[in-house]
């Protein structure tokens, strides 16, 4: 580690007279009253800054709208429109499924009413029908599944 020592302006490349002039030129105020006043002004400024900071961090609830620029509004509108479109699409799909389900159940009830015994789900499933003999009557219900 390099250890440096301030040469106090006495090194060969330093001119003691210039150093002396620099010290006189840059001398800080010596008066204690000046520093007391400076401290007082600084703390006052700090206090003002603090009260400003409190207001800054506790804005009115509506103040955020005032800070919106035109592009911000456009972005917000675009996001809202996308969300509304997705919600409408989801509702449409859900209603379509409900209608399909209702039509399927209506057709099933009609078939069940026409048959002497109730038909369970296994009877109507494709896997079970593959095991049925070619002349089994349940095969004629094939049309119901594709309905």
């Amino acid at each position: 580690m390099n250890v440096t020592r301030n040469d106090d302006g006495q090194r060969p490349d330093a001119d003691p007279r210039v150093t002396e002039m620099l010290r006189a030129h840059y001398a800080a105020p010596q008066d204690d009253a000046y520093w007391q006043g400076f401290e007082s002004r600084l703390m006052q400024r700090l206090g003002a800054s603090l009260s400003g900071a409190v207001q800054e961090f506790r804005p009115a609830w509506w103040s955020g709208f005032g800070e919106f620029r035109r592009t911000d509004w456009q972005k917000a509108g675009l996001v809202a429109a996308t969300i509304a479109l997705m919600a409408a699409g989801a509702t449409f799909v859900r209603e379509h499924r409900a209608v399909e389900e209702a039509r399927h159940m209506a057709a099933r009830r009609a078939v069940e009413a026409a048959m002497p015994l109730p038909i369970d789900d296994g009877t109507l499933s494709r896997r079970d029908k593959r095991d049925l003999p070619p002349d089994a009557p349940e095969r004629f219900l094939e049309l119901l599944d594709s309905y």
Partner: protein
Amino acid sequence: MADRPLSPDALEERYLVLAAQAGDNTAFAGLVRRHQRRAYAVARAIVLSHDDAEDAVQEGFLHAFRALERFRPEQAFGAWLHRIVANAALDIARRRKVRDADELPETLSSPHRDPAEADELRARLVRALDTLGERQRAVIVLHDVEGYKHAEIGAILGIPEGTARSDLHHARAHLRRQLSNLRSVK
């Protein structure tokens, strides 16, 4: 490794820092009282006038107050503060340079409240200082006037120690050239 015991002065400072971090403004005022003169010296080395140095110190303390939560009490508060004040001073010096670009150098570099301003030697020194680069001027003042070491100057100005050493050498050579005939003036 055991920590070195703190001096009473360092202990008091740490107490003030901890109290200020806990929201005690009186403790922060105590820190201001302890450090304002050195902070002024740092700022004054960088800016060209007393008024700008005052502004830089105030800005520096305000920044320090806002950043106090991030300060670790085991650090040296003075070194941390001086870096902040130096940055505030550099900022003011840059703004001033842009704002007053078309003003006369004499106006720019007039030292506030300097009773010897009219003195020819001082006036020439001021002009010579004004021809120095901002960083070189800060380095020579911090070293030759305030007695900071190269490493400390490097830490304050955010430059390597070797750069501070080199800047000092060049600044001294520049001033010596600019003021070479002073001996015959007096």
